[in-house]
Protein backbone atom coordinates (compact mmCIF):
# COMPACT_ATOMS: atom_id res chain seq x y z
CA UNK A 1 0.00 0.00 0.00
CA UNK A 2 1.25 3.45 -0.85
CA UNK A 3 2.64 5.17 2.22
CA UNK A 4 2.24 8.92 2.49
CA UNK A 5 5.21 10.88 3.72
CA UNK A 6 4.87 13.30 6.60
CA UNK A 7 5.66 16.18 4.27
CA UNK A 8 2.79 15.18 2.01
CA UNK A 9 0.39 14.94 4.93
CA UNK A 10 1.49 18.31 6.20
CA UNK A 11 1.18 20.05 2.83
CA UNK A 12 -2.18 18.40 2.18
CA UNK A 13 -3.53 19.64 5.51
CA UNK A 14 -2.30 23.18 5.01
CA UNK A 15 -3.71 23.44 1.49
CA UNK A 16 -7.05 22.01 2.63
CA UNK A 17 -7.35 24.41 5.53
CA UNK A 18 -6.46 27.43 3.41
CA UNK A 19 -8.99 26.52 0.71
CA UNK A 20 -11.72 25.99 3.31
CA UNK A 21 -10.93 29.28 5.04
CA UNK A 22 -11.12 31.21 1.77
CA UNK A 23 -14.36 29.54 0.78
CA UNK A 24 -16.07 30.17 4.11
CA UNK A 25 -14.91 33.78 4.36
CA UNK A 26 -16.20 34.41 0.87
CA UNK A 27 -19.61 32.88 1.61
CA UNK A 28 -19.95 34.71 4.93
CA UNK A 29 -19.02 38.02 3.38
CA UNK A 30 -21.41 37.69 0.46
CA UNK A 31 -24.35 36.70 2.59
CA UNK A 32 -23.80 39.11 5.47
CA UNK A 33 -25.90 42.03 4.13
CA UNK A 34 -28.90 39.76 3.53
CA UNK A 35 -28.57 38.23 6.99
CA UNK A 36 -28.38 41.63 8.66
CA UNK A 37 -31.42 42.82 6.77
CA UNK A 38 -33.28 39.74 7.99
CA UNK A 39 -32.36 40.51 11.58
CA UNK A 40 -33.41 44.13 11.25
CA UNK A 41 -36.77 43.19 9.75
CA UNK A 42 -37.24 40.64 12.48
CA UNK A 43 -36.74 43.26 15.17
CA UNK A 44 -39.17 45.65 13.55
CA UNK A 45 -41.65 42.82 13.21
CA UNK A 46 -41.26 41.90 16.89
CA UNK A 47 -41.78 45.51 17.95
CA UNK A 48 -44.97 45.65 15.88
CA UNK A 49 -46.21 42.31 17.17
CA UNK A 50 -45.81 43.39 20.78
CA UNK A 51 -48.67 45.80 20.14
CA UNK A 52 -50.65 43.33 18.11
CA UNK A 53 -49.82 44.70 14.67
CA UNK A 54 -48.16 43.08 11.63
CA UNK A 55 -50.54 40.15 11.85
CA UNK A 56 -50.59 39.53 8.10
CA UNK A 57 -46.86 38.98 8.03
CA UNK A 58 -47.03 35.39 6.88
CA UNK A 59 -49.59 36.13 4.18
CA UNK A 60 -47.97 38.99 2.32
CA UNK A 61 -45.77 38.46 -0.70
CA UNK A 62 -43.00 40.91 0.14
CA UNK A 63 -42.58 40.55 3.85
CA UNK A 64 -39.72 43.03 4.09
CA UNK A 65 -41.63 45.83 2.40
CA UNK A 66 -44.73 45.07 4.48
CA UNK A 67 -42.86 45.27 7.78
CA UNK A 68 -41.04 48.48 6.82
CA UNK A 69 -44.33 50.03 5.80
CA UNK A 70 -46.14 48.99 8.99
CA UNK A 71 -43.24 50.15 11.11
CA UNK A 72 -43.20 53.59 9.52
CA UNK A 73 -46.97 53.80 9.81
CA UNK A 74 -47.41 52.84 13.44
CA UNK A 75 -44.21 53.72 15.23
CA UNK A 76 -44.66 57.45 15.45
CA UNK A 77 -41.75 58.23 17.71
CA UNK A 78 -38.78 56.72 19.45
CA UNK A 79 -36.25 57.98 21.95
CA UNK A 80 -33.56 56.83 24.33
CA UNK A 81 -33.34 57.47 28.08
CA UNK A 82 -30.72 56.66 30.66
CA UNK A 83 -31.23 55.09 34.08
CA UNK A 84 -32.26 58.39 35.67
CA UNK A 85 -34.91 58.91 33.01
CA UNK A 86 -33.13 61.70 31.15
CA UNK A 87 -33.66 61.72 27.40
CA UNK A 88 -30.48 61.21 25.35
CA UNK A 89 -31.19 63.26 22.27
CA UNK A 90 -28.13 62.23 20.30
CA UNK A 91 -28.93 58.51 20.47
CA UNK A 92 -31.19 56.62 18.09
CA UNK A 93 -33.58 54.08 19.58
CA UNK A 94 -33.38 51.54 16.78
CA UNK A 95 -29.60 51.77 16.71
CA UNK A 96 -29.39 51.05 20.43
CA UNK A 97 -31.86 48.20 19.98
CA UNK A 98 -29.63 46.62 17.34
CA UNK A 99 -26.77 46.79 19.82
CA UNK A 100 -28.77 45.67 22.81
CA UNK A 101 -26.34 42.88 23.61
CA UNK A 102 -23.70 45.48 24.37
CA UNK A 103 -26.14 47.38 26.55
CA UNK A 104 -27.33 44.36 28.49
CA UNK A 105 -23.76 43.41 29.36
CA UNK A 106 -23.39 46.68 31.26
CA UNK A 107 -24.60 47.34 34.76
CA UNK A 108 -28.20 48.54 34.66
CA UNK A 109 -27.22 52.02 35.89
CA UNK A 110 -24.88 52.49 32.91
CA UNK A 111 -27.24 51.36 30.19
CA UNK A 112 -29.17 53.28 27.57
CA UNK A 113 -32.86 52.44 27.30
CA UNK A 114 -34.77 52.83 24.02
CA UNK A 115 -38.52 53.45 23.94
CA UNK A 116 -40.72 53.15 20.86
CA UNK A 117 -44.02 54.98 20.73
CA UNK A 118 -46.89 53.30 18.91
CA UNK A 119 -49.86 55.31 17.73
CA UNK A 120 -52.87 53.30 16.65
CA UNK A 121 -55.35 54.33 13.98
CA UNK A 122 -57.62 55.66 16.75
CA UNK A 123 -54.86 57.75 18.28
CA UNK A 124 -54.09 55.46 21.23
CA UNK A 125 -50.50 55.38 22.38
CA UNK A 126 -48.51 52.43 23.63
CA UNK A 127 -44.88 52.37 24.74
CA UNK A 128 -42.63 49.53 23.65
CA UNK A 129 -39.36 48.59 25.32
CA UNK A 130 -36.78 45.93 24.39
CA UNK A 131 -35.44 43.55 27.03
CA UNK A 132 -32.61 41.03 26.96
CA UNK A 133 -31.35 38.37 29.33
CA UNK A 134 -29.95 34.86 29.69
CA UNK A 135 -31.84 31.64 29.07
CA UNK A 136 -30.53 28.16 29.68
CA UNK A 137 -28.45 27.67 26.53
CA UNK A 138 -28.14 31.18 25.21
CA UNK A 139 -29.59 34.69 25.19
CA UNK A 140 -33.29 35.44 25.44
CA UNK A 141 -34.86 38.76 24.56
CA UNK A 142 -38.17 40.39 23.86
CA UNK A 143 -40.30 43.48 23.38
CA UNK A 144 -42.91 44.49 25.92
CA UNK A 145 -45.51 47.18 25.32
CA UNK A 146 -47.15 49.28 28.02
CA UNK A 147 -50.35 51.28 28.27
CA UNK A 148 -50.01 55.05 28.84
CA UNK A 149 -50.24 54.39 32.58
CA UNK A 150 -46.67 53.04 32.17
CA UNK A 151 -47.66 50.19 34.41
CA UNK A 152 -50.01 47.81 32.64
CA UNK A 153 -48.58 45.53 30.00
CA UNK A 154 -50.43 45.60 26.69
CA UNK A 155 -48.48 42.87 24.91
CA UNK A 156 -45.22 40.98 24.90
CA UNK A 157 -43.11 39.13 22.35
CA UNK A 158 -40.23 36.93 23.48
CA UNK A 159 -37.55 35.11 21.53
CA UNK A 160 -34.42 33.08 22.08
CA UNK A 161 -31.38 31.73 20.29
CA UNK A 162 -30.94 28.20 21.51
CA UNK A 163 -33.59 27.18 24.01
CA UNK A 164 -35.00 23.67 23.76
CA UNK A 165 -37.97 23.32 21.41
CA UNK A 166 -41.07 22.41 23.38
CA UNK A 167 -39.54 23.50 26.68
CA UNK A 168 -37.64 26.79 27.09
CA UNK A 169 -38.52 27.73 23.54
CA UNK A 170 -42.16 27.96 24.59
CA UNK A 171 -41.47 31.55 25.69
CA UNK A 172 -41.95 32.33 22.01
CA UNK A 173 -45.58 31.15 21.88
CA UNK A 174 -48.91 32.94 21.87
CA UNK A 175 -50.03 31.26 25.06
CA UNK A 176 -47.02 32.29 27.14
CA UNK A 177 -46.75 35.79 25.69
CA UNK A 178 -50.51 36.26 26.07
CA UNK A 179 -50.30 35.63 29.83
CA UNK A 180 -48.55 38.97 30.21
CA UNK A 181 -51.42 41.07 28.91
CA UNK A 182 -52.90 43.16 31.68
CA UNK A 183 -50.16 42.41 34.20
CA UNK A 184 -48.65 45.33 36.06
CA UNK A 185 -45.13 46.16 37.14
CA UNK A 186 -45.97 48.58 39.97
CA UNK A 187 -48.06 47.55 42.96
CA UNK A 188 -50.92 49.55 44.49
CA UNK A 189 -48.53 51.66 46.50
CA UNK A 190 -46.43 52.52 43.47
CA UNK A 191 -43.55 50.21 44.36
CA UNK A 192 -41.75 48.50 41.50
CA UNK A 193 -42.38 44.75 41.65
CA UNK A 194 -42.00 43.70 37.99
CA UNK A 195 -43.92 40.73 36.63
CA UNK A 196 -42.56 37.53 38.16
CA UNK A 197 -42.50 34.14 36.47
CA UNK A 198 -43.57 31.62 39.10
CA UNK A 199 -43.79 27.86 39.40
CA UNK A 200 -46.34 25.85 41.30
CA UNK A 201 -48.69 28.72 42.03
CA UNK A 202 -51.82 29.80 40.26
CA UNK A 203 -51.08 33.22 38.87
CA UNK A 204 -54.41 33.95 37.24
CA UNK A 205 -55.59 36.40 39.89
CA UNK A 206 -52.14 37.84 40.47
CA UNK A 207 -51.47 41.03 38.50
CA UNK A 208 -47.76 40.77 39.13
CA UNK A 209 -46.95 37.22 38.03
CA UNK A 210 -47.36 34.65 35.26
CA UNK A 211 -46.95 30.87 35.20
CA UNK A 212 -43.53 29.45 34.45
CA UNK A 213 -43.15 26.81 31.73
CA UNK A 214 -43.33 23.12 32.69
CA UNK A 215 -40.03 21.53 31.88
CA UNK A 216 -38.49 24.95 31.16
CA UNK A 217 -37.63 26.05 34.68
CA UNK A 218 -34.25 27.57 34.01
CA UNK A 219 -35.44 29.47 30.96
CA UNK A 220 -38.43 30.71 32.96
CA UNK A 221 -36.16 31.85 35.78
CA UNK A 222 -33.96 33.58 33.21
CA UNK A 223 -36.98 35.41 31.86
CA UNK A 224 -38.08 36.37 35.37
CA UNK A 225 -34.61 37.76 36.05
CA UNK A 226 -34.52 39.53 32.67
CA UNK A 227 -37.75 41.40 33.31
CA UNK A 228 -36.85 42.27 36.90
CA UNK A 229 -33.51 43.63 35.78
CA UNK A 230 -34.52 45.39 32.58
CA UNK A 231 -37.84 46.90 33.64
CA UNK A 232 -35.94 48.17 36.68
CA UNK A 233 -33.90 50.33 34.34
CA UNK A 234 -37.01 52.03 33.04
CA UNK A 235 -38.62 52.70 36.42
CA UNK A 236 -37.38 56.28 36.80
CA UNK A 237 -38.41 57.18 33.28
CA UNK A 238 -41.83 55.54 33.63
CA UNK A 239 -42.59 57.44 36.84
CA UNK A 240 -41.84 60.70 35.02
CA UNK A 241 -43.72 59.73 31.88
CA UNK A 242 -46.89 58.88 33.76
CA UNK A 243 -47.10 62.47 34.99
CA UNK A 244 -46.76 63.72 31.41
CA UNK A 245 -49.44 61.39 30.09
Amino acid sequence: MKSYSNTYIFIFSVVMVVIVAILLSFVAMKLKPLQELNREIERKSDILRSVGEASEESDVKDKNAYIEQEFDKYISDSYVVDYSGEVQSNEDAFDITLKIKEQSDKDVKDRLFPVFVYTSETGDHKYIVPVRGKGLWGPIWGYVSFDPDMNTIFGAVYDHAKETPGLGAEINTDWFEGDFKGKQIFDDEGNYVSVRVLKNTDTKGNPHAVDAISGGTITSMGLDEMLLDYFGGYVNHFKEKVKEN
Partner: protein
Amino acid sequence: MTEKEPLFSAKNLKLLKEPLGQSNPITVQVLGICSALAITVQLKPAIVMTLAVIVVLSVSNVVISLLRKMIPPRIRIIVQLVVIATMVIVVDQVLQAYAYEVSKQLSVFVGLIITNCIIMGRLEAFALANKPWPSFLDGLGNGFGYGLILIIVSFFRELLGSGTLFGIKVIPESFYDIGYANNGMMVLPPMALVVVGVIIWIQRSRNKDLIEQK
Protein backbone atom coordinates in the same frame (compact mmCIF):
# COMPACT_ATOMS: atom_id res chain seq x y z
CA MET B 1 -10.46 -0.71 -20.91
CA THR B 2 -13.77 -1.29 -19.22
CA GLU B 3 -16.96 0.12 -20.72
CA LYS B 4 -18.09 3.35 -19.10
CA GLU B 5 -21.10 2.51 -16.99
CA PRO B 6 -24.27 4.31 -18.05
CA LEU B 7 -25.29 7.08 -15.67
CA PHE B 8 -28.42 5.37 -14.50
CA SER B 9 -27.49 1.74 -14.76
CA ALA B 10 -29.24 -0.83 -12.62
CA LYS B 11 -26.36 -0.75 -10.17
CA ASN B 12 -26.55 3.01 -9.82
CA LEU B 13 -30.32 3.02 -9.48
CA LYS B 14 -29.98 0.55 -6.63
CA LEU B 15 -27.92 3.17 -4.79
CA LEU B 16 -30.92 5.47 -5.00
CA LYS B 17 -33.58 2.92 -4.15
CA GLU B 18 -32.11 0.76 -1.43
CA PRO B 19 -31.72 3.41 1.27
CA LEU B 20 -35.42 4.13 0.94
CA GLY B 21 -36.25 0.70 2.26
CA GLN B 22 -33.99 -2.22 2.94
CA SER B 23 -30.90 -0.24 3.87
CA ASN B 24 -32.65 2.80 5.30
CA PRO B 25 -30.11 4.82 7.29
CA ILE B 26 -32.42 5.32 10.26
CA THR B 27 -34.45 2.14 10.52
CA VAL B 28 -31.89 -0.38 9.28
CA GLN B 29 -28.44 1.14 9.59
CA VAL B 30 -29.58 2.87 12.82
CA LEU B 31 -27.75 6.11 12.10
CA GLY B 32 -28.89 9.69 12.59
CA ILE B 33 -31.40 8.85 15.32
CA CYS B 34 -30.68 12.04 17.27
CA SER B 35 -32.06 14.45 14.73
CA ALA B 36 -34.92 12.07 14.01
CA LEU B 37 -36.03 12.73 17.58
CA ALA B 38 -35.24 16.41 17.87
CA ILE B 39 -36.41 17.85 14.57
CA THR B 40 -39.62 15.95 14.02
CA VAL B 41 -42.01 17.91 16.24
CA GLN B 42 -43.37 19.62 13.13
CA LEU B 43 -43.34 18.86 9.40
CA LYS B 44 -41.82 22.06 8.07
CA PRO B 45 -38.50 22.03 9.96
CA ALA B 46 -38.21 18.29 9.27
CA ILE B 47 -38.43 18.92 5.53
CA VAL B 48 -35.90 21.73 5.61
CA MET B 49 -33.57 19.58 7.69
CA THR B 50 -33.93 16.79 5.16
CA LEU B 51 -33.02 19.10 2.30
CA ALA B 52 -30.02 20.35 4.27
CA VAL B 53 -28.83 16.80 4.97
CA ILE B 54 -29.33 15.73 1.34
CA VAL B 55 -27.23 18.67 0.16
CA VAL B 56 -24.48 18.15 2.74
CA LEU B 57 -24.40 14.39 2.25
CA SER B 58 -24.32 14.31 -1.55
CA VAL B 59 -21.83 17.14 -1.96
CA SER B 60 -19.53 15.80 0.78
CA ASN B 61 -19.70 12.37 -0.82
CA VAL B 62 -18.65 13.81 -4.17
CA VAL B 63 -15.80 15.86 -2.70
CA ILE B 64 -14.39 12.98 -0.71
CA SER B 65 -14.77 10.66 -3.66
CA LEU B 66 -12.87 13.07 -5.92
CA LEU B 67 -10.10 13.30 -3.32
CA ARG B 68 -10.15 9.66 -2.33
CA LYS B 69 -6.85 8.77 -3.96
CA MET B 70 -5.09 11.77 -2.44
CA ILE B 71 -6.21 11.64 1.18
CA PRO B 72 -3.56 10.22 3.49
CA PRO B 73 -5.23 7.42 5.45
CA ARG B 74 -3.79 8.65 8.71
CA ILE B 75 -5.80 11.86 8.62
CA ARG B 76 -8.81 10.68 6.67
CA ILE B 77 -11.30 11.11 9.52
CA ILE B 78 -10.12 14.66 10.06
CA VAL B 79 -10.40 15.43 6.36
CA GLN B 80 -13.93 14.01 6.27
CA LEU B 81 -14.83 16.14 9.25
CA VAL B 82 -13.43 19.27 7.65
CA VAL B 83 -15.40 18.66 4.47
CA ILE B 84 -18.64 18.00 6.37
CA ALA B 85 -18.18 20.99 8.69
CA THR B 86 -17.48 23.31 5.77
CA MET B 87 -20.58 22.17 3.92
CA VAL B 88 -22.74 22.53 7.02
CA ILE B 89 -21.48 26.05 7.69
CA VAL B 90 -22.22 27.04 4.10
CA VAL B 91 -25.73 25.57 4.35
CA ASP B 92 -26.30 27.34 7.67
CA GLN B 93 -25.21 30.70 6.26
CA VAL B 94 -27.40 30.25 3.20
CA LEU B 95 -30.41 29.39 5.37
CA GLN B 96 -29.86 32.47 7.53
CA ALA B 97 -29.79 34.62 4.42
CA TYR B 98 -32.58 33.10 2.35
CA ALA B 99 -34.85 31.24 4.78
CA TYR B 100 -34.45 33.15 8.00
CA GLU B 101 -37.65 32.01 9.74
CA VAL B 102 -36.85 28.36 9.22
CA SER B 103 -33.21 28.77 10.20
CA LYS B 104 -34.44 30.08 13.53
CA GLN B 105 -36.68 27.08 14.02
CA LEU B 106 -33.85 24.70 13.26
CA SER B 107 -31.39 26.83 15.29
CA VAL B 108 -28.64 24.65 16.74
CA PHE B 109 -29.74 21.54 14.88
CA VAL B 110 -28.30 22.69 11.59
CA GLY B 111 -24.87 22.84 13.20
CA LEU B 112 -25.51 19.38 14.62
CA ILE B 113 -25.70 17.94 11.12
CA ILE B 114 -21.93 17.78 11.47
CA THR B 115 -22.40 15.12 14.13
CA ASN B 116 -25.03 13.21 12.17
CA CYS B 117 -23.57 9.72 11.89
CA ILE B 118 -25.17 9.11 8.52
CA ILE B 119 -22.83 11.55 6.83
CA MET B 120 -19.60 10.32 8.36
CA GLY B 121 -20.90 6.79 7.96
CA ARG B 122 -21.46 7.08 4.22
CA LEU B 123 -18.19 8.90 3.61
CA GLU B 124 -16.28 6.09 5.32
CA ALA B 125 -18.29 3.22 3.93
CA PHE B 126 -18.82 4.40 0.39
CA ALA B 127 -17.28 7.64 -0.85
CA LEU B 128 -13.75 6.66 0.06
CA ALA B 129 -13.93 3.63 -2.17
CA ASN B 130 -16.16 4.65 -5.04
CA LYS B 131 -16.29 7.01 -7.99
CA PRO B 132 -17.92 10.47 -7.75
CA TRP B 133 -21.15 9.75 -9.62
CA PRO B 134 -22.09 6.61 -7.64
CA SER B 135 -21.05 8.48 -4.48
CA PHE B 136 -23.37 11.31 -5.39
CA LEU B 137 -26.22 8.87 -5.93
CA ASP B 138 -25.44 7.09 -2.66
CA GLY B 139 -25.59 10.47 -0.90
CA LEU B 140 -28.91 11.32 -2.55
CA GLY B 141 -30.35 7.91 -1.78
CA ASN B 142 -29.39 7.93 1.88
CA GLY B 143 -30.53 11.53 2.18
CA PHE B 144 -33.93 10.58 0.78
CA GLY B 145 -34.12 7.53 3.03
CA TYR B 146 -33.40 9.71 6.06
CA GLY B 147 -35.93 12.26 4.84
CA LEU B 148 -38.61 9.65 4.32
CA ILE B 149 -38.44 8.58 7.95
CA LEU B 150 -38.24 12.16 9.19
CA ILE B 151 -41.32 13.10 7.21
CA ILE B 152 -43.34 10.11 8.40
CA VAL B 153 -42.41 10.68 12.05
CA SER B 154 -43.01 14.44 11.96
CA PHE B 155 -46.32 13.93 10.13
CA PHE B 156 -47.65 11.85 13.02
CA ARG B 157 -46.06 13.93 15.72
CA GLU B 158 -47.42 17.19 14.40
CA LEU B 159 -50.85 15.76 13.60
CA LEU B 160 -51.35 13.96 16.89
CA GLY B 161 -49.34 16.33 19.08
CA SER B 162 -50.60 19.69 17.83
CA GLY B 163 -53.54 18.92 15.55
CA THR B 164 -51.83 20.76 12.70
CA LEU B 165 -49.86 20.04 9.54
CA PHE B 166 -47.41 22.67 8.33
CA GLY B 167 -48.83 24.88 11.03
CA ILE B 168 -52.31 24.75 9.53
CA LYS B 169 -55.01 23.43 11.82
CA VAL B 170 -56.22 20.14 10.40
CA ILE B 171 -58.20 18.47 13.15
CA PRO B 172 -61.60 20.15 13.15
CA GLU B 173 -62.82 22.01 16.22
CA SER B 174 -65.73 19.58 16.54
CA PHE B 175 -63.32 16.79 17.51
CA TYR B 176 -62.00 18.88 20.40
CA ASP B 177 -65.49 19.66 21.50
CA ILE B 178 -66.37 16.01 21.98
CA GLY B 179 -63.36 15.45 24.15
CA TYR B 180 -60.46 14.81 21.76
CA ALA B 181 -57.24 16.35 23.05
CA ASN B 182 -53.81 16.80 21.49
CA ASN B 183 -51.42 14.14 22.69
CA GLY B 184 -48.94 16.24 24.67
CA MET B 185 -46.38 13.43 24.77
CA MET B 186 -46.05 13.48 21.00
CA VAL B 187 -44.31 16.81 21.34
CA LEU B 188 -41.57 15.29 23.49
CA PRO B 189 -38.67 13.20 22.12
CA PRO B 190 -39.56 9.82 23.69
CA MET B 191 -42.62 9.51 21.45
CA ALA B 192 -40.44 10.06 18.39
CA LEU B 193 -38.48 7.00 19.44
CA VAL B 194 -41.72 5.07 19.81
CA VAL B 195 -42.89 6.11 16.34
CA VAL B 196 -39.54 5.10 14.82
CA GLY B 197 -39.86 1.81 16.67
CA VAL B 198 -43.29 1.24 15.16
CA ILE B 199 -41.93 1.98 11.69
CA ILE B 200 -39.13 -0.53 12.23
CA TRP B 201 -41.70 -3.08 13.40
CA ILE B 202 -43.84 -2.58 10.30
CA GLN B 203 -40.80 -2.70 8.03
CA ARG B 204 -39.56 -5.94 9.52
CA SER B 205 -42.96 -7.58 9.37
CA ARG B 206 -43.05 -6.90 5.65
CA ASN B 207 -39.41 -7.74 4.95
CA LYS B 208 -38.39 -10.78 6.92
CA ASP B 209 -34.80 -10.61 5.59
CA LEU B 210 -34.10 -7.72 7.91
CA ILE B 211 -34.70 -9.81 11.00
CA GLU B 212 -31.42 -11.04 12.42
CA GLN B 213 -30.94 -14.82 12.51
CA LYS B 214 -30.77 -16.12 16.05
